[in-house]
Each structure stands twice: as structure tokens, then as C-alpha cells.
């Protein structure tokens, strides 16, 4: 039986994380998933899980966050990708099977998946 995870593990994580925390907060990528009733009913939790799995598999460090409903319920699950220096891109109706391509194209190759884009917000 594997050893049950304990809070002790967190001390080590803390020490390692402190080294790169500043870098991450200033230059990192943030992926935001809508998690209102509409998003949840449309499958946003599974989409978020797919994103976490894909990031883990490809060893990409990105911040993942959830937010409430922004009023475009029919477009859920909505996924925002924000990278320092680039416009914020919103993808609509993101199902788990779309996640690998978005991660591959957008995060790794740097190409926005145009056909799935719902909107973009330029940075000021």
C-alpha cells in the first residue's frame, strides 16, 4: 500500500515553489475556466480536469483558475487563456476532447486555434 500523503510533503513543495513563485506570477500563463451552474452543467469540471491532465502530461507549468458565470451560458464551457504580452483569448464550448489541441497549438506552438475562438481582449 502506498504511503498516505501527509502534510509533511507540503514543506518540500513549499521550499521548491518559493524559488520560482516570482517568475510564475510575473510571466506565467493563466487558464481560466467558467464554473457557474451553466458551466458545470455543460461539463466545465471535466474540461478543467482535462486541462490539468494535459498540463501534467506535457509538463507545462500554468496557473489554472475557476470563475463564476459571465452571462454567456450557451457558450459554456468557456476557457480563457492569458499569457503575458498577448491578448486574452476566450475559447467557447470547450469539451475535454478539444483540450489537447488547444494546449498543443496555443501553449506550445503559440498559434491561437482560430476556429474555436469566441473572443479576444487586447492588453492595454
Amino acid at each position, binding site marked *: 500500500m502506498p504511503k*498516505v500523503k501527509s*502534510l509533511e510533503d*507540503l514543506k518540500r513543495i513549499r521550499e521548491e515553489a518559493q524559488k520560482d513563485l516570482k517568475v510564475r506570477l510575473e510571466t506565467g500563463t493563466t487558464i481560466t475556466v467558467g464554473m457557474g*451552474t451553466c458551466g*458545470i452543467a455543460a461539463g466545465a469540471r471535466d474540461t478543467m*480536469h482535462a486541462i490539468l491532465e494535459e498540463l501534467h502530461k506535457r509538463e507545462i507549468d500554468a*496557473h*489554472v483558475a475557476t470563475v463564476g458565470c459571465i452571462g454567456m451560458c450557451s457558450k459554456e464551457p468557456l476557457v480563457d487563456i492569458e499569457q503575458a504580452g498577448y491578448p486574452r483569448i476566450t475559447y467557447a464550448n470547450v469539451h475535454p476532447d478539444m483540450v489537447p489541441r488547444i494546449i498543443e497549438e496555443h501553449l506550445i506552438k503559440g498559434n491561437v486555434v482560430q476556429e474555436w475562438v469566441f473572443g479576444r481582449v487586447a492588453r492595454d
Partner: protein
Amino acid sequence: MRELSLHILDVLENSLEAGASKVTLTIEEDLTADRLTIAIADDGRGMDAEIVSRALDPFFTTRTTRHVGLGLPLFAAAARRCNGDLTVESTLGEGTTVRATFQHSHIDRAPLGDIRNSVLSFLLATRPVDLHYIHRINDRQFEFNTEDVRAELGDIPLSHPAVREWLSEFVAEGERGIATDSDR
């Protein structure tokens, strides 16, 4: 919603919207009494009696981005069709408690489902919030409090990739520890 854990996530998100800083989620599965009870208690801004009385009305919402509020009505409908009920208790300025009960063995009761990812989705909320999680199945119990986790982490957020992976594994192990084949 196909899983009770999706309803739970939905109510947890309500607590976030209500400005809660601490939420207690209790899931009690009493197989002898054939009851499943889910309680979500927060310290958010709460509601007055008028709003509480309308909280289960699908055509009532306090938000302005849309005209319906389906979260609690859907959860209530799920409970009521399983010989259960849903109640909302709230005190303005103090917080809200939502409690849903089900006949555990009812044919229409959705499975609890992927509670790990519901918990994780909630903990990845943009605004930091603490969760006290208690899951009891008969006399077995899995419990944790993110306040303890944060105490170890200092200024490292729960959303840090290494931390969220730890949390995910931690909850999965805890849930496995109390599960039996007959529960699901």
C-alpha cells in the same frame, strides 16, 4: 446534473459568490438508516428571509447577467425525487447553510461521482477560500481542512501546480480509504 458532486460544486460556487472565506462541506452516508446527507455551510454575506424564501424559485436570481437561477432548484428537485429534501438556512451577514437529504438506495439517486474534481475546481477559485471537508461513510471518515494546508504552505497558493497535484492525490487517497464496493 449527472452527479451529486456537480450539485455540490455548484453550491460551493454560490458560497464563493457570497464572499465566503470559509466553507464546511459535510457528506454523510449512513447506510444503516439508508440516508445520504450533504451540507454546505459558509460564512458568506447570507440572505434575508425574503430572499431565502425565493432561493428555490428557478425564476429568481440576484445576479444581473441572466434572469434565471437554476442551481438550488435543480439540487432540490434531485433530493425530492429521492424521498429527500433540500433546506436553506441563512442569516444576513453571517452565512448560509444548504442541506440536502436523499434516500441512499433510491433508484433515482445520482451517484456522488467525482468529488475530487469538484473539490479541486472549488479550491482553484480565483479568490482564495478555505474548505473544511468531511466525508463519512458509516463509521469511516475522511476529513481535511485547507487551513492546515495553507499553514504549511505559507505564501504559496493552493493553485500552484505542485500543490494542486498534491491536493488532487491527497483527496483521491482519502476517498479511496473510506470507500467500499457497495457504496457507489
